[in-house]
């Protein structure tokens, strides 16, 4: 995934312009003493390597295994998730919504790109793009079909548009025939998209 300016130069002059601009800004801010390069390194590494959907997967697996935790998670998502250490920016206030046979949940931010960073990491580009944001509140079933998920009409869809400080996360249904798996093994089954609501397990 790493690339550099000369790579950009070969395949996309627009990217090159943005790359030059970011480099100029970083150099300027460092020269002015407003930013430290190692702080940039640290925050990027933190969000690329230390947060991400594995955190959310642990929350989900625990909810599947521990009814009391699940009840707490659905009643006070913020406290239950913070108790596992998954807290911080864009995860200060959490509401967890449970998929059932009757209801399928899906999250979006139509106005920008709000997303629960501490449990899911940073959002994929499609989540931030115009097509997903425009369409999922109007035609969630058509959008889900593009993700390969065809929901029966009997299952209600609830679309959660992240318009304030609360971030949403979907608690997917536990897959069948997983009664013999450990909580850690269950966590390995949980995908990012299942916690966005664009997939089921």
């Amino acid at each position, binding site marked *: 995934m790493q690339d550099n300016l000369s790579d*950009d130069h070969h395949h996309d002059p627009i990217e090159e312009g943005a790359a030059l601009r970011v480099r100029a800004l970083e150099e300027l801010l460092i020269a*002015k003493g*407003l930013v430290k390069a190692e*702080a940039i390194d640290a925050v990027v590494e933190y969000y690329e390597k230390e947060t991400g959907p594995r955190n959310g997967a642990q929350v989900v697996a625990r909810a599947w295994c521990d009814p009391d935790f699940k009840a707490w998670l659905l009643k006070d998502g913020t406290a239950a998730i913070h108790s596992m250490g998954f807290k911080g*920016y864009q995860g200060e206030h959490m509401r967890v919504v449970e998929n059932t046979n009757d209801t399928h949940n899906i999250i979006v931010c*139509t106005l920008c790109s709000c997303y629960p960073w501490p449990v899911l990491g940073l959002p994929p580009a499609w989540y931030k793009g115009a097509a997903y944001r425009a369409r999922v509140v109007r035609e969630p079933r058509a959008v889900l079909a593009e993700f390969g998920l065809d929901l029966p009409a009997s299952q209600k869809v609830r679309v959660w*548009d992240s318009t304030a400080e609360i971030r949403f996360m979907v608690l997917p249904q536990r897959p069948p025939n997983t009664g013999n798996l450990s909580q850690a093994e269950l966590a390995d089954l949980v995908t990012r998209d299942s916690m966005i609501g664009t997939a089921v397990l």
Partner: protein
Amino acid sequence: MDGIHDLGGMHGFGPIPIESQDYRFKHDWQRRAFGIVQAVAGNTPYVADQHRYKIEQLSATDYLTLDYFEKWITATSALLKDARLVNDQELATGQKEFDVDLVNHPAVSADDLLSAMKIGADYQFPTNSQPQGFAIGTRVRVRSDSPQGHTRVPRYVRGKFGTVLATEGVFQHADSVAAGQGRNPQHCYLVSFSAAELWGSSVEQADDDILLNLAESYLEPM
């Protein structure tokens, strides 16, 4: 602001580019852009709603064509300029032209930045600090207000009827904060809208729901 960023419900954007855009960073400069935005938020200072508002003020064409992280950098540059920490000439060249007051705008260390990110931003006030105008179960209408400035009411619920499902507590008000008019704390509600109310006879499935968090001042009694 009823700008191009308010995309909910719009037609014409085609299929979701799932496969081609299933990445968080595609280029290293995007990583650096992300990091810069986080690293200077505290010492500039600015909050998310100010950053969002700068992005909303891009031209519609720029909004639709610029890379996501280029928009972030553009917004951050504008906020740094508003704070008089950089000027246009510096932004154009990347060359420093003047010194800034580093006592009041100290560069954050890696450790302090990570600590701050792990703590997060607290925009909440005690729940009983403000009157709660709407009880759970109340039918409400979203006000028609559509200010020129930043707001967190999408057009697609404007004037529509919904039901209050919960109160989320008392938070600072995005419109006020982005306008530099103080925190104006108020209750934030979880409001449910039926798909039929939002999309009428062109609805995909009438009894599906769309749920939003909406501030007290966005709502009026039915």
